[in-house]
């Protein structure tokens, strides 16, 4: 795979898509069957080790998938290189910040 390979992004998009599909269905079913009524219930649900791992992979896949998708849109429509770079940088920072916030919150909760 080359440095500026198109295959890599495509694989990330497809793999993350499959993971997200699985997780969304799982979470949807779970929340439908056991909707949390209180803060304690909700916290307990998320703190469960399986849930923690699932949510970590879910958010990692979500951020990767969002990045590839938005990057595709920007590459399609924005042709002026400086503007394209600026927009992509902004999006990358936004997604990384989201990831960092989630990761730090998870670590603080322990």
């Amino acid at each position: 795979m080359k440095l500026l390979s198109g295959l890599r992004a495509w694989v990330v998009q497809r793999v993350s898509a499959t993971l997200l599909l699985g997780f969304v269905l799982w979470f949807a079913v779970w929340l439908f069957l056991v909707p949390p009524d209180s803060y304690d219930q909700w916290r307990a649900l998320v703190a469960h080790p399986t849930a923690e791992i699932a949510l970590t992979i879910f958010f990692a896949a979500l951020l990767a998938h969002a990045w590839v998708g938005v990057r595709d849109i920007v590459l399609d429509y924005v042709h002026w290189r400086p503007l394209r770079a600026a927009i992509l940088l902004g999006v990358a920072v936004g997604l990384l910040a989201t990831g960092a916030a989630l990761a730090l919150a998870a670590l603080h909760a322990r």
Partner: protein
Amino acid sequence: MKLSIYRYNPEQDTRPRMQSYDIAPAPTDRMLLDLLLRLRETDDSLAFRRSCREGVCGSDAMNINGRNGLACITALAQLKEPIVLRPLPGFPVIRDLVVDMTQFFAHYHSVRPYLINNEPPPERERPQSPAERARLDGLYECILCACCSGFCPPYWWNPDKYVGPAGLLQAYRFIADSRDRATRERLDFLDDVYRLYRCRTIMNCTEVCPKHLSPSRAIERIRARLLGEAF
């Protein structure tokens, strides 16, 4: 029959415009090209390319009632009036329905659409089994009319960097050829965020191909090949 045709003469017009026509077809006029040639009897300023009149040269590709097609094999009986004719979308217009195909052909050239095999040539032909030859069906028949690339939104947005369905179909024609030895280089060339991977499988290309080929499937096969070569 009523027509509305895109007109643009760089020597006279600052902007393109639509011109209406109303012409009675002769009983022998069955295809759109017949009507266009009849139209030129009264208005010979209308410019369009045409040659074989049987759907094999690809010269008269144009946008007919919103969809790309070849005028010579588009039946008049199938067309709603007024018949709206415009040049291939996204291509620079030289005049009226004649577009500049240079960039389109540049992409075709860039995929090296010829057999690359530097092994010493055999005494006679390079053998190919019927099964191997069958893998070229649906690929070699392309007439480079550009109906597909002219209907492909990613090609509209990036006609300089995205190779486009026609070029990619031809690229796959040589990747799939058992006699070719440059598969790795061909795949390497296409493995680029623009060249191949602008394709979103919209399938507009396959919808309008007048030879009923499937560039979207060829692109799918290239992606599978790239995946296979990497893992």
